[in-house]
C-alpha cells in the first residue's frame, strides 16, 4: 500500500492526463473488468484494442461517468474524480463521442452543439446571432466547412460525426473518447477526422481511440493498450508494436492464418447478371459468378455495392437488365422469389435488417426456413427445427447459453454467426455476404472466413462485399470494383492489390489516387 501512496504523490504520475487505476466492474453473472489500468499522456492519441467483450466499452463508460466502478478510481491531472453521471464527466473535462449518434435531427447544427448552454440575450431569450458566431469560431478552429443553420437531418453520417466531435471540443474537454469513429466514414472523411485529431493532439488533449482497424491504429495512435476478457494485457508506444503482435495479445494465441483461402475447382456459371440497373442508383452492372468461386465486390461507401446485393435478392427489384440463374432467366421481385431460386443475403446492417433483437437465438435462426419442408400444413415442425438449429449453433460454434437466449445478449460475432446460420439452413447455391465481418472480433472473423472458404469448396457461389481491403484481397478469387453505381473493373486474385483496387474505386476517369 505504501508504494501505491508514494506513486500517487510522485510527480511522474501527474505527467499523465488521465489515469484509471485498478478498476473493477462486475455485472450480474459476469466480471466485465478486473484490475484494469489505463494511462493517457497529454497530447497523445491512445488506442484501445481488444476483441468484442474485452472490456473496452465498459472501461470507456466508467471514464465517461456512465458506469460507476465497483473498485478503483479515475484520476484526471492526478486528482481522483468522483463521477456520478455523464454530466459530471463532461464538466470535469471528459467528453465521449458515442457510436450511436445522439443528435436532434430537426434542430440546427448550432442548436445541437450549444444545447443546454445556449447564449442568452438581455431578455433571457436565446441569442441566435451569438450562437451562430460561436459555432463559426468553433468550426474555424476545427477546419469544418458547414453552415451552422443547417438542420442536422440534412447531414450525412460523416457530417453528424463531425458535429459530435465539434460538440465535444466545445466543452473544452481535456479528454476525448472516440468509439470506432470511422466505421461509417469514407476515406476522405477519415482523412479530415485525422486532421482534426492531429490538431487536438497538438493542443495537448488526450484522445482515447477505440477501433478494430489495424491500419488506422498505426496511422493515428501514439500509445496502444490491449485488453482481453476484461483484463488489462499490455500497453506500449505504437512504434514498439506490430499488427501481428497486437493480434496475438488480443486473442492470447497466435493467429496462424488470417485468410484461410483454399484453391477450389471453379465450376459452371451459376449466376449471370447483364446490364443490371436500378434507376438513379446504379447501371450497367454485368458479371458472372461460378460455383465455388468467391467474387469480392470492393468500392467506397456509396458506390452502390450494397444496392446491387439488395437488388439481386429482390429487396429493391431491378429497373433494368437481366439476371440468369443456371442459364435460365430469373425474375427476382421479392426476397422470397430470390430464396426460391437459391439465393441468400447476409445484410450489411446487422441491427437494422438482420436481427430480431427481442427474440431468441432459435427464433432468429429458424425464420428463413419456416416454409421449406419444416412445416406440416400451417404448423411448424418445431422439434426438427430445434434439432437443426442446435446442430447449426454447434457447427458455427455460437457461444450462447441456450437456444432460448435473447439474441441481444450475444456478442456481435455470435449474432453474426446466428444470422449466417439462418441462411445456411436454406442451403443456398448463391450466397451474398455484405460486410460479413463488420464490427466483430478477430477470433470470430477468422472462423467466419474459414466457413466462407468451406462453403465455396462445397460449390456455393459466393459474392462478398467488404470495405476491408485485406479481407477482399485475402478471400476473393476475383474482385469487382465499383464507383458511383458503375463497375470500374475486375481484378484477378493474382493481380489485385490495395493500390489497384483503390485506383478503380476512387474514379475511373481521374488520375489514379495512390495510397500507401
Amino acid at each position, binding site marked *: 500500500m505504501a508504494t501505491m501512496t508514494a506513486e500517487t504523490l510522485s510527480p511522474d504520475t501527474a505527467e499523465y492526463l488521465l489515469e484509471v487505476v485498478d478498476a473493477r466492474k462486475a455485472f450480474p453473472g459476469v466480471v466485465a473488468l478486473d484490475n484494469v489500468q489505463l494511462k493517457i499522456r497529454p497530447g497523445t492519441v491512445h488506442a484501445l484494442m481488444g476483441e468484442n467483450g474485452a472490456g473496452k466499452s465498459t472501461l470507456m463508460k466508467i471514464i465517461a461517468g456512465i458506469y460507476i466502478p465497483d473498485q478503483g478510481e479515475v484520476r484526471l491531472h492526478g486528482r481522483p474524480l468522483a463521477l456520478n453521471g455523464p454530466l459530471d464527466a463532461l464538466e470535469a473535462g471528459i467528453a465521449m463521442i458515442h457510436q450511436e449518434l445522439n443528435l436532434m435531427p430537426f434542430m440546427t447544427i448550432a442548436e445541437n452543439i450549444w444545447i443546454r448552454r445556449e447564449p442568452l440575450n438581455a431578455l433571457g431569450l436565446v441569442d441566435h446571432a451569438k450562437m451562430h458566431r460561436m459555432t463559426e469560431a468553433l468550426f474555424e478552429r476545427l477546419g469544418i466547412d458547414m453552415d451552422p443553420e443547417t438542420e442536422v437531418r440534412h447531414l450525412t453520417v460523416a457530417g453528424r460525426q463531425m458535429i459530435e466531435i465539434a460538440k465535444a471540443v466545445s466543452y473544452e474537454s481535456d479528454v476525448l473518447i472516440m468509439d470506432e469513429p470511422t466505421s461509417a466514414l469514407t476515406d476522405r472523411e477519415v482523412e479530415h477526422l485525422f486532421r482534426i485529431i492531429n490538431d487536438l493532439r497538438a493542443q495537448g488533449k488526450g484522445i482515447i481511440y477505440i477501433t478494430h482497424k489495424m491500419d488506422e491504429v498505426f496511422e493515428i495512435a501514439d500509445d496502444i493498450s490491449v485488453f482481453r476478457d476484461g483484463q488489462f494485457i499490455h500497453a506500449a508506444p505504437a512504434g514498439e508494436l506490430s499488427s501481428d503482435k497486437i493480434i496475438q495479445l488480443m486473442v492470447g494465441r497466435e493467429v496462424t492464418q488470417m485468410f484461410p483461402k483454399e484453391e477450389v475447382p471453379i465450376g459452371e456459371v451459376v449466376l449471370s447478371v447483364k446490364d443490371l440497373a436500378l434507376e438513379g442508383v446504379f447501371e450497367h452492372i454485368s458479371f458472372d459468378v461460378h460455383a465455388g468461386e468467391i467474387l469480392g465486390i470492393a468500392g467506397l461507401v456509396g458506390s452502390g455495392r450494397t444496392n446491387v446485393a439488395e437488388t439481386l435478392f429482390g429487396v429493391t427489384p431491378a429497373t433494368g437488365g437481366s439476371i440468369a440463374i443456371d442459364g435460365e432467366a430469373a425474375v427476382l421481385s421479392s426476397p422470397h422469389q430470390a430464396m426460391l431460386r437459391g439465393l441468400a443475403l447476409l445484410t450489411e446492417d446487422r441491427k437494422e435488417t438482420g436481427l430480431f433483437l427481442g427474440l431468441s437465438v432459435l427464433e432468429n435462426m429458424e425464420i428463413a426456413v419456416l416454409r421449406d419442408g419444416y412445416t406440416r400444413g400451417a404448423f411448424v415442425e418445431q422439434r426438427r427445427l430445434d434439432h437443426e438449429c442446435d446442430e447449426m449453433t454447434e457447427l458455427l460454434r455460437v457461444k450462447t447459453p441456450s*437456444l432460448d437466449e435473447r439474441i441481444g445478449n450475444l456478442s456481435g460475432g455470435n449474432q453474426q454467426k446466428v444470422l449466417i446460420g439462418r441462411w445456411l439452413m436454406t442451403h443456398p447455391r448463391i450466397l451474398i455476404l455484405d460486410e460479413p465481418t463488420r464490427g466483430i472480433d478477430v477470433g470470430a472473423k477468422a472462423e467466419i472466413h474459414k466457413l466462407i472458404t468451406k462453403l465455396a469448396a462445397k460449390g456455393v457461389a459466393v459474392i462478398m462485399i467488404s470495405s476491408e481491403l485485406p479481407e477482399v484481397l485475402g478471400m476473393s478469387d476475383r474482385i469487382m470494383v465499383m464507383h458511383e453505381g458503375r463497375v470500374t473493373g475486375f481484378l484477378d486474385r493474382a493481380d489485385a492489390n490495395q493500390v489497384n483496387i483503390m485506383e478503380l474505386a476512387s474514379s475511373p476517369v481521374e488520375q489514379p489516387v495512390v495510397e500507401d
Partner: protein
Amino acid sequence: MATNATQTPDTGQHLEVSRKRKRKVPTEVSIFLVLVGIALLFEILGWVVRGDSFLMNPQRLLIMILQMSIIGIIAIGVTQIIITGGIDLSSGSVLALTAMVTASLAQQSDYARAVYPALTDLPWLIPLAAGVLVGALCGLVNGALISFAVIPPFIATLGMMVSARGLARAYTDGQPVSMLTDQFTWIGSGANPVIIFLAVAVIFHIALKYTRYGKYTYAIGANPQAARVSGINVRRHLVLVYTIGGLLAGLAGVVAAARAGTGQAGMGLMYELDAIAAAVIGGTSLAGGYGRVTGTVIGALILGVMLSGFTFLGVDAYYQDIVKGAIIVAAVVIDQYRQRKRNKAA
C-alpha cells in the same frame, strides 16, 4: 488433477455450453400473481367492509367471466395486432356493426318490424357467418390501408372506429334490432360465451406459438425490415393479421348480440380500450415483438375482477374508472421498464 475436465482439449472446454432449452419463469406467472393478489385484496376488503366473501360466490364469478368473455375475444385479436407493432382502435365499433348485421339476420318471422321481412327464422349459422364476415371485412380494410396505403395503424383504425360506428347507426337509422330467434340467442346463453372465449384463446395460443402464422407475426413486430429480408411477405401478412383481428371483433359482436338478444348501435363502446388494456396488462409490448395469449386472458380477468370487486364493494363507477386508468398506465410503465432492461442487455 487428472480429472476428466482437465483432459478435455482447451478449445473444447472454451466452447462448452449447454444448449438445453432452459425454461425461464414466464411473464405470465407474475401477472397471474397480480390477479391472485387483487382477488385476495377484494376478499379481505369484502370481509372488512361488507362482512361477506367476494370469491365464495359462484354466481358472481360466472357473471364476471361472462362480462369479460366478449372483451376477451376482442383482446385476443388485438394482442396479435399489437405483437406486429400495430394497434387496433376499431374493435369496439366493429363489434357494434356486426351486432347490428348479425341481429338483422336472426329475427323471428312473427315480428312485424323485422329489418329484412323476407329473411327471418334463418338457421343460426347464417347470422353467425354474416357477422364474422362483416368483422373480417372491416379488418381487411384496416390491413389494406396499413399495408398498401402505408397509413399508420393508429390512424387507419381510428378511421374505421368512427366509420364503423356510423355504419352501425345508419344501418337501421339508430333503431335497435330485436326479437331474435331462440336458436341464435342460444349462442350467448349460459356459459357459452365463456366457452367460445376459451376456445378462441386456445386456438390462438397454439397459432401464435406453433404455426408459421405466429412466428411471422412475432418476427414482423420485432423487426419488419429483417422480416422482409428473411423472405416474409410483410404486407400480405399484416393484412391477414388485421383481417383476423376484425374477424374476432365480429365474433364478439355475434356473441354480444346473442347474449343481449338484440343488436344496438351503441354496443361495445370503449371496448377497444378495454381490449388494449387487457393485452397490455397481460404483458404484450406496445413496441411489438412480444406478447402472449395467456397473458391477455389473465389481463382480461384482472379487469373483470376489478369491475366485479368494486361493484361488490359498492364503489362508485367513476372511481372504478380512475383506478382502471391508473392500472393501464402502470402496466405500460412496467412494459417500458422491461424494454429498457432488454435494451441495456443488448
